[in-house]
């Protein structure tokens, strides 16, 4: 095997099809950037799930004087009803599932509301009595919120039981949909990348048909004839996937860490470390894609 010769052949091939090679590079670049972004988004979702699910509480909202009459016929939950609910939380049936709970009265709810909606006109009109008093329950296993919901729904003095995870799930569903869309676009782009690679090789094989004919006659091995073509595709796709890896890393470094993380300081975001996990996978995917596409093209257009 003479590497100088093989490298020379690859160089020839790349120069001969320069426009096709550039399009292969660009298409793999864009498609793998989508793949990388989607996988980072998935990592981000995983990270947020871990973080928020652990902190998600179940809220047992008590009736207020403005609660709808069909759920709260007695109006504002009396202190007796409050005590009954608290007793139930302390009962041996529920105790094993509950890590801790605390009670939020009208005053605390009002203060929190004022803080959250500071500057919003709604803050001016709301009164403490309109806001629910609430038992905030943290569970040992946040996925078992069903138990609390079933125990307190319909209990006198309880307006509503709400698992905070249901809000989070909506956010995660949106993020999931976004990453699925990215994967879908990436899949289409990858198909066109594969087709482009095989077209490039077909053109390349056609423009080198004299050489190939002579190589076959003098007994060059199939491997030797095909290698420059495969490597040509692989080189182009590697450049494209390296660009994609670079793009993904800079998105993490400059957009996520540099911008999002400073704007939203209490959320954990994917780090450069996560990006460095994704980047080599992208390059490997690019090389694999081009090797498979080239192999396929060669089987079709370079019969020995």
């Amino acid at each position, binding site marked *: 095997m003479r590497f100088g010769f093989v490298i020379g052949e690859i160089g020839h091939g790349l120069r001969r099809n320069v426009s096709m090679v550039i399009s292969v590079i660009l298409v793999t670049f864009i498609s793998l950037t989508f793949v990388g972004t989607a996988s980072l988004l998935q990592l981000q979702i995983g990270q947020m799930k871990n973080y928020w699910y652990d902190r998600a509480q179940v809220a047992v909202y008590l009736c207020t004087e403005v609660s709808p009459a069909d759920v709260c016929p007695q109006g504002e939950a009396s202190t007796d009803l409050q005590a009954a609910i608290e007793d139930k939380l302390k009962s041996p049936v529920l105790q094993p599932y509950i890590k801790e709970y605390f009670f939020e009265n009208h005053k605390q709810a009002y203060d929190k509301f004022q803080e959250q909606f500071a500057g919003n006109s709604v803050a001016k009109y709301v009164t403490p009595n309109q806001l629910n008093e609430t038992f905030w329950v943290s569970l040992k296993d946040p996925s078992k919120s069903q138990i609390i919901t079933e125990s307190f729904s319909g209990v006198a003095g309880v307006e509503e039981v709400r698992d905070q995870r249901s809000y989070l799930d909506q956010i995660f569903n949106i993020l999931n949909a976004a990453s699925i869309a990215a994967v879908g676009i990436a899949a289409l782009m990858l198909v066109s990348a594969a087709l482009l690679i095989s077209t490039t090789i077909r053109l390349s094989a056609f423009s080198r048909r004299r050489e190939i004919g002579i190589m076959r006659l003098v007994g060059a*091995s199939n491997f030797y004839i095909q290698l420059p073509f495969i490597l040509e595709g692989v080189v182009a796709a590697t450049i494209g996937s390296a660009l994609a890896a670079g793009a993904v890393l800079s998105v993490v470094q400059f957009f996520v860490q540099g911008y999002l993380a400073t704007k939203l300081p209490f959320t954990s975001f994917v780090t450069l470390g996560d990006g460095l996990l994704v980047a080599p996978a992208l390059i490997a995917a690019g090389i694999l894609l081009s090797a498979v596409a080239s192999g396929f093209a060669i089987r079709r257009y370079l019969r020995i």
Partner: protein
Amino acid sequence: MIRIENVTKQYKGTSRPALNNVSLEIEKGDFVFLVGASGSGKSSLMRLMLREDIPTSGSVHVMGENLVAIPSRRIPFFRRKLGVVFQDFRLLPTKTVAQNVAFSLEVIGKSQGFILEAVPDVLAMVGLEGKADRLPGELSGGEQQRVALARAIVNKPAVLLADEPTGNLDPATSEGIMALLERINLAGTTVVMATHDRGIVDRLQKRVVEMRDGEIFRDQRSAGYIKTQTDSHPVKSWNLAIDQSWSLGGDE
């Protein structure tokens, strides 16, 4: 060296086979002219010997390889033991004479040292000293065919297949090429040459295999282009000789 037994080749979509039950044996060191009209099956036979194609039925053995059963990964190694030249030379127009010859060695992985030694030697042998750095376009047809011959024999093949090597050349130039082929043959290489050139066949008086309509019409030693009267049953007697060598388990 080359043994073809009961070979039939039928191309798809044709009613008449290109080769019809052809048997032929060529010994080591033979010089064989394959003659016959266009479409008589010469090229089909050459393609089978090169393993460009496989027969519909029958067997083809060349240099001990069963070309019907040879696995495709071994075909390149088989072809390294074989030299081929064509009517249209098949040189690379962008490479010089020396590079054209060197290319055939590079692609089978020969070392640079071997190439630097072998290429000038073979160019000298075919009479192209001093033209190593010319491009094919700057050479005459005869010289181009010499380059093709140099490329075919640089790896010292045991068999040289020549498909109308003088087809594009004038008679004087053809003589030069034939002299070269005779020298290659004298050095021990088996030569099979398909040709239409009556003058050459008549003058050299080598073994002649004449094809007609996909069958061997005549197989005669020391013969001319047209069947001579001196040998009344040439085909039969030659077939007897083949039968004998097979039963003795002779060289393929």
